[in-house]
């Protein structure tokens, strides 16, 4: 376990930037900024003609650290402690669960809650609860 410091100001501003992106996407394309939905729709079957726009959005996410590197001269801190088997299992669960449950932290947690959607509220409470429970089991039951 790696200790991290409490960063209320940076987190609040970073969160606001995420909000700005979500509002811009709605204003321009009329769509929810749900990363799992956008990413999953890059895979077949294709139901509409929005592939290029979705790919561009995802490319922007991937390029963000490189822009940060150019602007600030260093990469932001990122610590991943999980081993390969855990990474594969968790990736499968996150990918399957977000598509099966129609959204992730951004689609349900940010956009859905902002639309006062009951479905998003239930989903957000559920994934927060199993997230808390999983960390509790991993860190305190072994």
């Amino acid at each position, binding site marked *: 376990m790696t*200790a991290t410091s409490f*960063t*209320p100001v*940076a*987190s*609040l*501003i*970073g*969160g606001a*930037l*995420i*909000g700005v*992106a979500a509002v811009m996407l*709605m204003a321009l*394309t*009329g769509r*929810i900024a749900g*990363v*799992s939905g956008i*990413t*999953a729709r890059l*895979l077949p079957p294709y139901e509409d003609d929005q592939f290029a726009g*979705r790919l561009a*959005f*995802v490319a*922007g*996410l991937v390029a*963000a*650290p490189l*822009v940060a590197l150019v602007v600030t001269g260093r990469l932001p801190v*990122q610590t*991943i402690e999980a081993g*390969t088997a*855990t990474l*594969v*299992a*968790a990736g499968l669960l996150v*990918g*399957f*669960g*977000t*598509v*099966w*449950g129609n*959204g*992730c932290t951004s689609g349900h947690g940010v956009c859905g809650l*902002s639309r006062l*959607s009951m*479905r*998003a509220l*239930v*989903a*957000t409470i*559920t994934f*927060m609860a*199993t*997230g808390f429970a*999983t*960390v*509790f089991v991993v860190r305190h039951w072994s």
Partner: protein
Amino acid sequence: MAILLQFAIGLVFGAGLLLSGMSNPAKVLNFLDLGGIASGSWDPSLAFVMAGAVAVTFAGYRHVLRQSQPLFAEQFHLPTKRELDLRIVTGAAIFGIGWGLVGFCPGPALTALGFGSRAAFIFVGAMLAGMWLARFLSHMPSLSRIATPADPLET
């Protein structure tokens, strides 16, 4: 033009994830570790990420959704489904377990690819496989009949 702007929006979103600390799995796990409240290792920062994001999105959506249509599309594509079903609970529960194991949800995992870390490529590869499997199952007629007839990806 619209494509370039969507790339820029992805950049802003990614910058938000990086600045907020959401892109750092260690920070996410320390937030999810309520057992750390007693020992002093709990990091409540992510509550501020959610607060900032929801405040701006709530206010922005109120303004944007009053317009007759988006700038580059004929209409708004908003989720229409309102009723709760088993899928939204089971899916979210499964997602939360994966989130708690590593500390990555989909957005931060994608920005992590830009760090060039091997772990991120493994995670995202598995995530895409999981997404494909869920879509495949959703499109099977026998399953979609009992589960949900609407767009399986609708939020």
